[in-house]
């Protein structure tokens, strides 16, 4: 299991600003190791964020997203104390889901 994500969700005006920092290698599949062998691609393919069961953002990523990906987005309709859940799945089928309380 991968390391937990850092998620911060805070109300700004009428919107909720969500910032997510994920821990992932995001290996491109282009790089070679010291022995000259290609390092196989290993990256997050899908990211989904939900609030009260409703999807507020979904994304498909390629290997060109930086290592330890950062993501910021904003949605309306969230209140302090409610939860935002972020889930990612990588190309090896590994999965991680974390939640944050809106503050």
């Amino acid at each position, binding site marked *: 299991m991968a390391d937990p994500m850092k998620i911060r969700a805070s109300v700004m005006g009428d919107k909720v600003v969500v910032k997510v920092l994920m821990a992932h290698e995001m290996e491109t599949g282009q790089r070679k190791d010291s022995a000259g062998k290609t390092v196989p691609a290993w990256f997050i393919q899908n990211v989904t964020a939900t609030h009260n069961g409703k999807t507020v953002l979904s994304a498909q990523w390629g290997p*060109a*997203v*930086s290592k330890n990906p950062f993501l*910021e*987005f904003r949605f309306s*309709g969230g209140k302090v104390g409610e939860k935002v859940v972020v889930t990612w799945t990588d190309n090896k089928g590994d999965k991680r889901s974390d939640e944050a309380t809106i503050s």
Partner: protein
Amino acid sequence: MKQSRRTLLKASSGATVIALATATGVFKSGNVYALEWNKAAFDTKGLQETVKAMGGTVATESKDISITSPDIAENGAVVPVSVSSKLGNTESISILVEKNPNALSAAFEIPSGTEPFVSTRVKMGQTSNIYALVKADGKYFFATKEIKVTLGGCGG
């Protein structure tokens, strides 16, 4: 003969498993977790090719899309990029790097209620134009910006 029968058996038992799984709702369609990944789009080389792989026809330039990023990135491995769109009914935002081995970096679906804005960090192999591709009202629009990548920490 034996070989083909074995293959057939294998195939049919596999199909049964899928049928059962569908019936019990494991692969329920419309499930939030029924994830898909558009491999064709992530294999493309250029902007218009990506638009076609996403199911569109052609993308036109728009002034209503803005890209926020540094003009010069010292480290191509971590280039912060923000995209926001003022187009009505923005459905998706994608970030493309023209000179990367595959252009498409990330594609975001924007449901209603979510601001047409995303911010993330991408890798760039070299100085290149980046594109923000926005799907709004079923049509594709783009904006572009050049980011210079200086390698070796010379600071350009």
